[in-house]
């Protein structure tokens, strides 16, 4: 079980945290891993806090519980730092990735004394620059792939292009922007 990576996503309904978790499962599957990607729904409405999860492993995954002691936490919406105990159970040797326009120093005091690594990315900037609209999940996906070392950048971009071609078969015009967002996010995460 030591090869198991567990990731917990915190987002708000409508931001695509669930979709990002499913896409992460998708790309990790392409590397030959066993994967799980699943959402936990609260009230089904825009803006409500939602949680999504990933398990990635070299061996068959059987557990069907939520994830309480993740190695990585992804915070898609900064306002959740106050609303939800995002660092709950987060492993010290893991990391938290926060979507914010603030600096790392400004974010750390809001992490309830979390001692592990902290990464930030301005997904708003990336999204607006590449897609002209605010879709935080695409940049967050690329950022966690880099932070968690899921796969190399070139391979990731190649797999995602194939995935987007399938997902956006009906609106191919959005693929370019999404690809640019992934590429830029890979560089922007710090």
């Amino acid at each position, binding site marked *: 079980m030591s090869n198991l990576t567990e990731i917990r996503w915190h987002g708000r309904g409508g931001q695509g945290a669930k979709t990002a978790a499913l896409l992460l499962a998708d790309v990790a599957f392409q590397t030959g891993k066993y994967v799980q990607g*699943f959402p936990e729904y609260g009230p089904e409405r825009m803006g409500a806090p939602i949680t999504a999860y990933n398990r990635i492993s070299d061996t068959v995954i059987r557990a069907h519980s939520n994830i309480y002691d993740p190695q990585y936490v992804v915070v898609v919406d900064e306002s959740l730092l106050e609303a939800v105990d995002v660092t709950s159970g987060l492993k010290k040797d893991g990391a938290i990735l926060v979507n914010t326009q603030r600096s790392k120093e400004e974010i750390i005091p809001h992490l309830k004394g979390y001692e592990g690594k902290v990464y930030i990315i301005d997904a708003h900037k990336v999204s607006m620059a590449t897609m002209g609209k605010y879709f935080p999940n695409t940049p967050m996906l690329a950022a966690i792939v880099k932070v968690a070392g899921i796969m190399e950048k070139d391979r990731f971009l190649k797999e995602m292009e194939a995935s987007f071609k399938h997902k956006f078969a009906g609106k191919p015009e959005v693929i370019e922007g999404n690809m640019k967002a992934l590429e830029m996010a890979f560089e922007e995460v710090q």
Partner: protein
Amino acid sequence: MAKRDRLSGNEAVAIALRQINPDVFPAFPITPSTEIPQYFASFVANGQVDTEFIPVESEHSSMSAAIGASSAGARSLTATSSCGLAYMWEELYIAASNRLPLALALVNRALSGPININCDHSDSMGARDAGWIQMYAENNQEAYDNMVQAYRISEHKDVRLPIMICQDGFITSHAVENIELLEDEEVKNFVGEYAPENYLLNPECPMAVGPYSITDYYMEAKRNQAEGMKHAVQVVKDVAKEFAALSGREYGLFEEYRLDDAETAVVMIGSVAGTTKDAIDKLRDQGEKVGLLKIRLYRPFPAEEIAKALSHVKAVAIMDRAEGYSNQGGPLGADVMAALYRARSQALAVNYVYGLGGRDVRVEDMEGVFATLKQIAADGDAGEMYRYLGVRE
């Protein structure tokens, strides 16, 4: 030949249905089963199947239309969850008593109220006496494999009963996991063409379906129906054997996990069985002799076989993801305890109600159940036989 993929449980069942290419699929959406007809509708639109897809205005109508189609001689099915199944109640009995081999892809969800969209088994457990064959899955792979086997069981001439293929709402229906799919041709050949012996649209042999039955005949009709259910046990085994030859994946009436030499065991249905296997491996590493019996076929209920598989166990916990309001526990608890009594078992048995409305069950929770069973075995006393797991009191 097998294709490795990663799919949600709903997508997996929809793909099985595309490969089966049924004749008629009436549907009305309800969370968390909605994606099944949604994916299937895209297969219809893309011309990948030639199924007659009928969007209806309610679940009462979707099951009615499936019954009408099946009576006419078509291979039909629908999908639903929770209150949708409840709204089909009348039709469930009609499908079974008319001996119509149609399928229902059920995605288990709690019944209202309070309103809740998450998993428990109260919907299908409430329908356990309706005369349908019921099969359950631990994960997306089993949901897919059960769907592929469904019509072979329900259409078998010794059975001729409708079949409910159940999976856990959200936990497996919306979780993307690894899966192995069969080739389209393999599924097509395995399922075969449907050639009903008697059907409404046969001008050579006019017949009535579902007419009034006077008291003088009604009981014989019901007795015949029970006979079909009795035969289903062997047919499920036979079909599983053929399926294993095709897929390499073996199924029985239930799965035994490290049960051979177990001193304590858990009996359960559905996705938490996977979590329980992790708990068992952990406890086995510590020298604890613990095991699992996971129900696949719940109706008909393989009571003798279950009692035999548990015959060496000192203490057993039967896990119900539904409350029965009998003040005695849940439906699975009642069935398993009756099976143990008939087999004159000496096992100490307790019945837990757990996971209602999606309440999460962790590996640690199941370790706790096994710790309780160990204590029960040591004391030689089951204590309170009707318990709750993971509830705030």
